[in-house]
């Protein structure tokens, strides 16, 4: 016997690989990514009633992961400020592969500003339609497409001409 809760549960389980991929494209570190996702899942499951039937479950979950990520970035920023205050800031910029075309895809993605990275992750990696991606980020379509365009352009420059050139 199954209930709506069971059905949702199995659907969320099916989405876990994609959610992990999304979390990893945000956090750069596999363990951080799973931590982020775990926190987001706990948040999602205590608010299951907020998911509206008829809307995409994956988009709802991506949104929660995004919120969890923003929270994480904020607390990281606070930590860093505290470190600076006590003179222990460790600024180790990643200059590996700075010459154009020798960066890995992950390194290049990490160079993007957060808003562009999110647009690129949702559309180019997760393959979501613009409309869904814009809703997840909470911006109008035009904002999404311009962030996406700038992100693409930056990536092309950082990575050099791809195989299709």
């Amino acid at each position, binding site marked *: *016997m199954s209930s709506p809760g069971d059905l949702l549960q199995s659907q969320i389980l099916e989405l876990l*690989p994609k959610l992990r*991929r999304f979390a990893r494209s945000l956090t750069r570190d596999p363990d951080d990514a799973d931590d982020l*996702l775990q926190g987001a899942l706990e948040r999602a*499951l205590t608010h299951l009633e907020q998911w509206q039937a008829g809307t995409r479950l994956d988009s709802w979950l991506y949104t929660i992961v995004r919120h969890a990520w923003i929270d994480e970035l904020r607390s990281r920023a606070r930590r860093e400020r505290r470190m600076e205050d006590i003179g222990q800031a460790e600024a180790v910029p990643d200059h590996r592969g700075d010459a154009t075309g020798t960066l*890995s895809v992950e390194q290049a993605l990490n160079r993007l500003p957060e808003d562009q990275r999110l647009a*690129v992750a949702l559309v180019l990696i997760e393959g979501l339609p613009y409309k869904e991606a814009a809703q997840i980020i909470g911006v109008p379509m035009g904002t999404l*497409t311009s962030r996406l365009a700038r992100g693409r352009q930056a990536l092309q420059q950082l990575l050099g001409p791809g*195989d299709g050139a």
Partner: protein
Amino acid sequence: MTIPDELLAAYVDGELQGAERARIEQAIAQDAQLAQRVAQQRALRTRLRGAFDGVLQEAVPQRLVQAVKHGTQSGPAQVIDLARVRADRARRGSGQRSVKVRRFAIAASLAVGLAAGVLIQRLSVSGALTEFHDGALLARGALAVALNTQLAGAAPSGAQVRVGLSFKARNGNYCRTFSLSGSRALMGLACREQEQWQVLNLLGTEGASLSGNGQNLRMAGSSLPPALLQAVNERISGEPLNAAAEARARSNGWH
């Protein structure tokens, strides 16, 4: 024809339909430079996917699976299915335990003792449902009859006792969950001990899904409060009995 980057990107991203799409495709076919721009865009997509798609092939860490399972289990519905009973047992085996479930268990669990006995006596309508014997709470009356004869989820309408799921415990004895309707609904777990049904867990269940006239009871093998679920998990060997295995056990007198 000049095509702006964003339009070309929208084409590559599958956002264009119909005439607009056809127009771009026609332009690409006639313009090698445009075709190259499209190829570059596609290559970028492929590279990005290639860098992250490996995650999809990885086994999902158990802690994430458990985060989903615990979450829905402790949610408002508190409905379990057989797979979840199994998974929860596996989780217990691996030493992880949901804090939430534990909290529920402590809050809701009612130790079998005199208080529960009194509670159940008071609730009993057609004679005593339980009896203390050598320190054990044994099923009697309608409860014993139902545990012996009722198939899970097949309680007659208006029945005072409803049997939920049946399973074989690790010690080889059969166990069954049950619910009792009345002024205060109770749910419990009984296992066979020396030719009798011994009530091992009993807990009061308050809340909309379990109160009322008994028709609302959602005990038909699919719903257990977390505390009772935990008691089941602690004893169960393998999976709950399916209808055929349960009928067989009944005709063998629960031996």
